């Protein structure tokens, strides 16, 4: 009895099964999406689709286009997917997305609606890197990249490498970091991508050109988001200080001058500690180790000299932090996230911040005494 019914049930399931089945070779694997909303309110989406045969492991070197970009437009975001059906012969598959590119005007108009749309369906992801493009997104997304021939992957690896340089795993520059940042007063910073060179590098002939940086993508500066809306731009220096002072970065290269001579160092093991001296005074203390990368002083490295270098660094960096703070106040962006602390809630501008830098030079490298 039980067995009979079970068998009948199983057969029933078999007869009608496989609703969600999708064959691998029926998928258009999306690698990168660029979104732009033009002034008429039309959404333009550029889907970069992998061309599997040309990126197969066995084949090497430039052969065919690794990706194709499809451009669709629609009046609502929700119907972009449907529109792809008119240009693509395969099922759009966004689970393997590596990167979103957002045009600056779209970002300035606010991303919350878009994020809502993205988080609604299981195949769309928000934990992927997002970059803002100053140039028209169509140009950025129609660029063949070198070394990593899949542009999305290329950007992603670039960002990963970027993060590694700060000694962290992932930079908070993903779509979801914007949502997570919404309830906080500290802005979220996304990187800005720039396209160098005239005319987009959209033909795979470009892969034969030896000059790699002639027409290529470059990460430069950051776009500041408050409440999922882009409010302005910052340069790399501010962006990096933001990562350091908010405790993301654990290492970073720096440059300062000792007695008029340039010294390049890498600071490692950065620790940031915030203490409240009084209700209105916040002290931010940074402890770090230094390692010399380049020392242009023409004198022997003595204990005294090392002390001078540490002093010089502390001073220089403190100035930098204060610059950062005044920039933050001037722009009215709570870049230090003071407004998210209990004491500073809703009045971060009234808080006076004191910086205290303590550094220790540990690694001096091989050249103790420079050649003169």
């Amino acid at each position, binding site marked *: 009895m039980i067995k009979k019914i079970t068998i009948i049930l199983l057969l029933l399931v078999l007869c009608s099964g496989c609703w969600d089945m999708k064959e691998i070779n029926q998928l258009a694997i999306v690698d990168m999406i660029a979104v732009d909303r033009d002034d008429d309110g039309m959404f333009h989406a550029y889907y970069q689709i992998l061309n599997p045969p040309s990126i197969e492991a066995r084949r090497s070197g430039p052969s065919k286009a690794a990706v194709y970009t499809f451009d669709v437009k629609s009046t609502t975001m929700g119907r972009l997917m449907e529109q792809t059906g008119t240009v693509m012969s395969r099922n759009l598959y966004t*689970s393997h997305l590596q990167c979103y590119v957002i045009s600056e005007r779209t970002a300035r108009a606010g991303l919350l609606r878009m994020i809502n749309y993205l988080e609604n369906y299981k195949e769309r992801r928000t934990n992927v890197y997002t970059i803002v493009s100053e140039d028209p997104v169509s140009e950025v997304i129609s660029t063949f990249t070198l070394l990593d021939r899949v542009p999305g992957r290329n950007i992603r690896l670039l960002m990963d490498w970027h993060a590694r340089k700060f000694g962290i795993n992932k930079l908070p520059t993903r779509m979801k970091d914007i949502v997570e940042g919404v309830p906080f007063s500290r802005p979220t910073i996304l990187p800005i991508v720039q396209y160098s060179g005239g005319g987009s590098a959209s033909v795979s002939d470009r892969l034969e050109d030896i000059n790699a940086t002639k027409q290529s993508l470059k990460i430069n500066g950051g776009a500041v988001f408050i409440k999922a809306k882009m409010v302005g731009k910052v340069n790399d220096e501010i962006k990096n200080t933001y990562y350091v002072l908010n405790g993301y970065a654990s290492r970073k290269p720096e440059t300062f001058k000792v007695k008029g001579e340039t010294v390049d160092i890498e600071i490692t093991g950065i620790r940031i500690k915030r203490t409240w001296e009084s209700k209105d005074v916040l002290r931010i203390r940074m402890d770090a180790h230094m390692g010399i990368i380049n020392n242009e002083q023409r004198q022997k490295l003595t204990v005294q000299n090392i002390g001078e270098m540490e002093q010089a660094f502390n001073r220089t960096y403190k100035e930098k932090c204060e610059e950062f703070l005044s920039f933050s106040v001037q722009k009215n962006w709570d870049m230090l996230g003071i407004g998210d602390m209990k004491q500073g809630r809703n009045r971060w501008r009234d808080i006076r911040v004191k910086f205290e830098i303590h550094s220790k030079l540990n690694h001096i490298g091989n050249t103790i005494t420079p050649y003169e």
Partner: protein
Amino acid sequence: MDQQIQDMSAVIQKKLNHAPDLIIKSYNVQEQTKLTCMYLCTITDQKLVDELIISGLLTPHSPLEDSQDPVHWLMTAFKQAEIKEVSGVDSYVKELLEGQCIVAPSGQKAVSINVRKQEQRSIAEPETESVVRGPREGFVEDSSRNLSLIRKRLKSEKLTIEEMVIGSESHTTVLLVYMNGIADPSMINEFQKRLKAIQTDSILESAYIEEYIQDKTLTPFPQFMSSERPDAIVAKLLEGQAAVITDGTPIVLAGPITFFQSFSTSEDYYQRADIATLLRWLRMLSFVISVFTPSLYISIASYHQEMLPSSMLANLASQREGVPFPGVVEAFGMMVIFEVLREAGLRMPRLSGQAISIVGALVLGQAAVEAGVVSAAMVIVVSLTAIANFVAPNYGFGIAQRLIQFGFMFLAGILGFFGVMCGVFVLLIHLVSLRSLGVPYFAPLAPLRLSKWRDTFIRINRPLNRSKG
């Protein structure tokens, strides 16, 4: 007197359907007594018959006196032979069929002398269970020799043997062997009860018995261990299990077993404990690989592509670019073809078996991929599954793996991971509800018996294992 003997011969001949190999000869002993010898020449040793009976009868040690009962005289005359008294035509026939020679002075009573032909192959290395280190002896088809192989290893008075004859036509000798005092008496009782309950006409192989005595019929999992290695069976006896030796087959059953015992071999105990533990885990891993690889491949390739690393997805997509079949069909097709190949390899004469494997490997592997009929990934999946399947030390267990693997492929084909997970749950429920001779099949994991772990999931060095090794 003569008439009586002749009647008897006629009845016997009739009972045996006038078998051409039935030999009936009459001799006169000391002129006055007539003895009739009957035997089936095909199953008796002609030399023995000649030596023992004919010459023995014609030149007796002591003369037959008139007053003496001829049967009694015969019993003393053949003291050295295996001899017993029988009476009645039915028992004569039974003895004849067992290879005895009936010597009848009269119609009522006779003696039967054992002249059975000892036709058997010599003890050889078991072919299905080869070991690197360990004894090379294997069981043979003769139950008494098998018993001697066990006795040789267990010179213990605890070794208990119970003989029973099962099969209304085949009259197969079945021996239940266990260690008295080590084996659980209630388990032995249950075993005896089940063996006695068997109602059948014939037992040709121990699998017949296994089917009758297993706890649950509708399951792919073997509930008894079968082995042709005496050392393996002896080890099981020492663990308190019971073994069934069936006459006519070298495969001896032992039980009760548990699921996890299927992953251990007798060789584990001849090797270092650390490597044995590692190998057990390897076998369990192979079980998982062989059961789940095809279904995982189907569910990932057809339902959950996000699981693949991006670059691998691109690779797989380009491999499958020209393949005409959907993933499920491809997987089922390849697995079925592989099963066909395996069966062909088993049934073919040994020499052409190799040809099969070459054709299979070359044609199906290389050519099919190059022709774009299947994807290279699928060939990898099938080979991986097959190789992992061969790791199963117990052949019956390997068969179970193949069966459930197809079940999981089916489930993966209709519902992806969800289907597989439903299957896993059903499989777990099924496994824990199984029992082998009343012993929970999934012990010592469920029910949890941590103390038993040291000889299932790991093997602890004998000196360190304080309980008996």
